């Protein structure tokens, strides 16, 4: 099983290395964001938005990339092609998940490293960060799989992905605290899955409120499980 999972993992690495825009979005863009916030805001503000920048990175890496892959490979009949090999659907999914966890962890390390060493961000590192990154990646990989599977075309997959992703990218505490929003929007953002990632990571890394952090982690796990089940239920190698 691991041999086949790793064979597809190598395909993802080669595809990623050949795709400059992917490298920019996942690794260079977070660096730019930390530099921008670190240069124009006091370090307390940067500390506050670092969990949001990590969430932003994991969302863009996983949701948009998997939405595109799931719709494109289906429409190009690449999933059909893979179904004729010993690679199983579950192995493909695990390989995709593994890749996005690693990219998410790399984004985390870059953002935290630059924030801490270049701009003196006051961040706490805790083991709870690991499940946040793992289930965050699982959540957005699953959402991307679901959107890419149900969309009729690559164009509509992109539109749905953007419609789902952009409100989360802006409103859930990624670039400014949710408390800056009007009251009704503060309530509305609670339906956005990224909110639980950003707030929970903020509890663990910034405020040290681990009880609330665990509560948000629980919601994140439940959301990841729900979207994972829905995505894998609808996702098909072969057509009926």
């Amino acid at each position, binding site marked *: 099983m691991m*041999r*086949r999972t790793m*064979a*597809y993992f*190598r*395909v993802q690495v*080669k*595809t990623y290395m*050949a*795709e400059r825009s992917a490298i920019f979005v996942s690794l260079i863009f977070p660096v730019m964001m930390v530099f921008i916030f670190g240069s124009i805001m006091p370090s307390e503000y940067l500390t506050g938005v670092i969990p949001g920048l990590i969430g932003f990175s994991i969302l863009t890496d996983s949701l948009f990339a998997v939405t595109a892959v799931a719709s494109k490979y289906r429409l*190009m*009949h*690449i999933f*059909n*092609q893979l*179904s*004729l*090999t*010993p*690679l199983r659907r579950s192995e493909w999914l695990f390989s995709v998940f593994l890749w996005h966890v690693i990219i998410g962890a790399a984004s985390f390390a870059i953002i935290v490293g630059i924030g801490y060493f270049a701009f003196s961000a006051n961040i706490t590192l805790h083991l709870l960060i690991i499940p946040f990154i793992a289930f965050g990646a699982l959540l957005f990989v699953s959402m991307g799989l679901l959107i890419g599977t149900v969309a009729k075309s690559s164009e509509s997959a992109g539109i749905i992905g953007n419609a789902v992703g952009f409100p989360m990218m802006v409103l859930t505490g990624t670039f400014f605290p949710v408390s800056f929003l009007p009251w009704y929007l503060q309530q509305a953002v609670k339906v956005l899955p990224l909110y639980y990632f950003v707030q929970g990571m903020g509890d663990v890394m910034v405020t040290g409120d681990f009880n609330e952090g665990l509560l948000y982690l629980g919601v994140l796990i439940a959301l990841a499980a729900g979207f994972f089940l829905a995505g894998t239920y609808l996702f098909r190698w*072969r*057509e*009926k």
Partner: protein
Amino acid sequence: MIRVSGLRKSFGKIRAVDGINFEVERGTVFALLGPNGAGKTTAISMLEGLLQRDSGNIEILGMDPWAEHGTVRMRIGVMPQGFNFFEKLTPLDSLVFYRDLFESSVDPESLLRLVILDDSRNVPFEKLSGGQKQKLGLALSLVNDPEILFLDEPTTGLDPSARRAIWSIIRMFRDRGKTIILTTHYMEEAEQLADNIAIISHGRIIAEGSPEGIVSRYGSGRKVVIKAGKEMGDFLSSERIEASVNGKYFEIRLDPETNLSSLIGLIEDSGISYSQLTVRADSLEDVFIRLVGEMSEGELK
């Protein structure tokens, strides 16, 4: 080796495959020949286990390709129509990926040489020409040394030399005792490669047999073909000689009672000039066009 009976598949109200039956023996090449939209790809997709059938039976190596896909896929190779793959992967990367998945001992370089793609081994898939992509599809279908090879329009869009290269690989594969199912709308391809042919139109098989057998069964024997102007048509009508007109060509079918030398003498004596006069038998293409045409007319009625 392959048994298909009563196979049906509909998409909404369209009956793409409408009750087809055939058998294919080991070590032979079987061609599904038909116009675009005849149901060839739908049929072959069900045989490959990629598409679920509505009804009927399929036996591939004694197994159901949909229900036992996990076992069947290890013993077949598939080259789909308009083959697509990971855009950034090179042919060499792609073959190494497949070799790892199948845990095969095949040498990717030798497969690249076999399909004459070794010069492009490090070119990303998105930069390959249509013919090179098809060749990679063929190479990937051979990685697991399959017992049955399914080729869906393998040479569509290829230049003549690439087409012949693929034909020689198909022949070599058949000579090793393997079985090939191919779909095509090229008559020459079917005549060159196939031991048996099924002509498919509107989801139904309308003729089946060896290429020679189909021509002798459904063909109308010999005919005289004359390339000439309109006055030739008027002359043939005045002599009560039945001829079909196809542009500048007049075709006179020869029944057993017709005396060929008398007919040619009559045309010569008329003094009407012509640029070409040939006597030939029906080809597979003639039979194909007639059968598919009759089927379409029947559908319209």
